[in-house]
């Protein structure tokens, strides 16, 4: 009955042995078990190699101890061509039958974690080290979880007994000891943003925020957040959120409190027919940049300096002046970026559909900054 995972290569096995030989209490209130992950919409890393998994299907955030917390100080660039075909072969299927849902770089070990979904909806979690792709076992691992509070849907079912509640976790992040989760509802046109203390607590001490988007000209609208990151601007922490309808908006983190309605400041509109995919903050020579990948646009680079410079002008969101204005941004010669995460201060891991059709995972160099 003993199960042998041949994907756990000998080396990894040794590391596991070394870890399990010492009995120690599970970190962060985790218990050993097998999390029932039904889908993986988003990945992010918390502290010490804890992987946060946003599961839209079960409206739950899982925190998994990957035990992959050995610091890597000399990160080598990763380049895997046709990664979808390689992953498909490892899963015994065609590239057409899988989709890569998200990637996240473990900030400690610098290993890349990749969420894949097969055509039948089965979620798969993989780890990429150099050019080696292996499975991450989710059986008998330390984990904790938190069900997102989607109370109204309880008894809304269709004739077949299916839930009619349509929702998705659009992004997940971690900052200052809190798991940040943005959610989209298929029904209402608004945004929920949750800031959940980690380790998870029983009392679900979470903030649920509805965010107003002070749009250009004179129309104020609600809108759902597609992706976000956090950044420090002039010593103050901000949530930098990008929207499904009109992109870049800043929210002071200290205003995001339970039950409050926070007005965001639009700093840029970045084009039509487009949905932002990922945002990361990187820096070079003391200057920091916001990098943003898009569904129908190249990767944008925005200087945080330019965002800072807008600080004063945007405190009155209805001013006509910014109906057409906005923070300047540069379009990089990098298109069709499907996923993106930060590798270190100045480099990013990029999953890109090249013009020859190949889906490649590669490491950006400083020259893009």
């Amino acid at each position, binding site marked *: 009955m*003993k*199960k*042998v*995972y*041949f*994907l*756990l290569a000998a080396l990894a096995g040794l590391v596991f042995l070394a870890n399990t030989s010492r009995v120690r209490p599970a970190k962060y209130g985790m218990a050993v078990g097998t999390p029932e992950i039904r*889908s993986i919409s988003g990945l992010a890393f918390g502290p010490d190699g804890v992987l946060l998994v946003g599961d839209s*299907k*079960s*409206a739950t955030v899982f925190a998994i101890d990957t035990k992959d917390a050995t610091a890597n100080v000399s990160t080598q660039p990763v380049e895997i061509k046709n990664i979808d075909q*390689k992953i498909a*072969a*490892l*899963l*015994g*299927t*065609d590239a057409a039958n*899988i*989709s890569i849902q998200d990637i996240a770089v473990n900030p400690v070990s610098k290993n890349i974690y990749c969420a894949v979904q*097969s*055509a*039948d*909806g*089965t979620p*798969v979690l993989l780890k990429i080290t150099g050019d080696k792709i292996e*499975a991450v076992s989710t059986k008998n691992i330390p984990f904790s979880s938190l069900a997102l509070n989607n109370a*109204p849907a309880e008894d*809304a079912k*269709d004739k*077949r007994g*299916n*839930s*009619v*509640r*349509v*929702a*998705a976790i*659009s992004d997940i992040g971690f900052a200052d000891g809190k798991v940040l989760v943005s959610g*989209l509802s*298929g*029904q209402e*046109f608004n945004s929920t943003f949750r800031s959940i203390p980690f380790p998870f607590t029983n009392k679900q001490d979470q903030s649920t925020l509805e965010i*107003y988007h002070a*749009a250009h000209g*004179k*129309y*104020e609208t*609600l809108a759902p957040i597609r992706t976000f990151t956090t950044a420090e601007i002039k010593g103050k922490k901000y949530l930098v959120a990008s929207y*499904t*309808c*009109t992109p870049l908006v800043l929210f002071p983190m200290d205003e995001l409190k339970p039950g409050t*309605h926070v007005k965001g400041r639009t700093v840029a*509109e970045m*084009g*039509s*027919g487009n*949905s932002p995919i990922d945002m990361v903050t990187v820096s070079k020579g003391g200057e920091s940049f916001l990098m943003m990948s898009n*569904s*129908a646009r190249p990767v944008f680079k925005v200087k945080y300096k330019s965002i800072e410079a807008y600080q004063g002008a945007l405190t009155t969101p209805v001013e006509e002046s910014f109906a057409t204005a906005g923070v300047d941004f540069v379009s990089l010669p990098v298109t069709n970026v499907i996923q993106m995460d930060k590798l270190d201060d100045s480099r990013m891991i990029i999953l890109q559909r090249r013009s020859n059709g190949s889906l490649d995972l590669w490491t950006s160099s400083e020259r893009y900054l």
Partner: protein
Amino acid sequence: MVRLAYIPGLTFFVCLIACLPESANQSIDIQWKNGQAFAIRIPGALAADIPEDSIFSLVTVNIAGQQNPVGILGSFEQKESGLLFTPMIPFTRGMHYDVRVRDTRVGGFEVPENNAGNAPRVIAIYPSADTLPENLLKIYLHFNQPMREGLSAKYIKLIKNKRDTIDGAFLDLQPELWNPERTVLTLWLDPGRIKRDLQPNKRLGAPMQRGTHYEIAISQAWTDARGKRLAKAYQKAFVTIAKDSLSPQPSQWTLVPPTAATKQALKIDFKEPLDHGLLQEVFTVQDGAGEKISGQWQIGKAEIQCHFIPDANWKAGSYKVLIEPRLEDLAGNNLVRPFDRDITKTSEAVTGEIALLHFNVK
């Protein structure tokens, strides 16, 4: 007659056993669950003499025909009947696989195409009316089977005047907006193009214009989670009318109260179509003491009306219908805030309370 009919069947059965080649005991069996090949059993004869702790290094399963065979990720389990291999995702229909022991092919198997079962169908498209506001915001597609995700942009088109496909009409969202069962998908017409004065709206205009014929076309090529294509292509045709920029007004609705000691439906007429997805969630009926009345909501034709049928007979008395302010019409205007709120004009409430409608049962 009955006995006679049995004889050929029995003969066939005997022959089936007798005619089996000796190697049949060594054949690789596919293990099925819900129509999926979730594992294979490799007979002991094929993987004999392999120490349990070396299985993962000596036995591999790979897609047939690979020059450099790549072992499929999965787990092995030693059973009495042989070695059970469970890949991380089920084997794919129509594909051939090899089993290799010590780098030598010892057998193979094919996972047959799925010819059984019914093709998935679109069972409803909401809004169901055939005249819709030009600033329509959402479309709900209901399927009778869980569908494959991530493909809506490829398989759903908005076609104008039976000729032109409108590019970028729907918002490209990943992940898409599905219910947990993957049978209901929400599509948004690009809100950036609907909202007045936003850049997409200024540059490209609204996705739809009034007085025009449109069609939502769903390709038959869309597959469900089992890999089966839709039974046919589906269309929904509609004509656009003027923009709707006003919030729904419950005070204008009409209620037809039921009669006491019956299970008659409470009928609510909204006078305009409202959002199908929200109609199932936002209403609560309470009696005079504030107790919730349990029952079923049914949404009427074109989402203009809904009916509430109580589980128990109505008792005479006063009742109220509570309506959550997040209820929207087809253009995303909710009870307290239009989709586009002109903040230079009015001081409309932006945070709403539960709206109430009262009725009496006699």
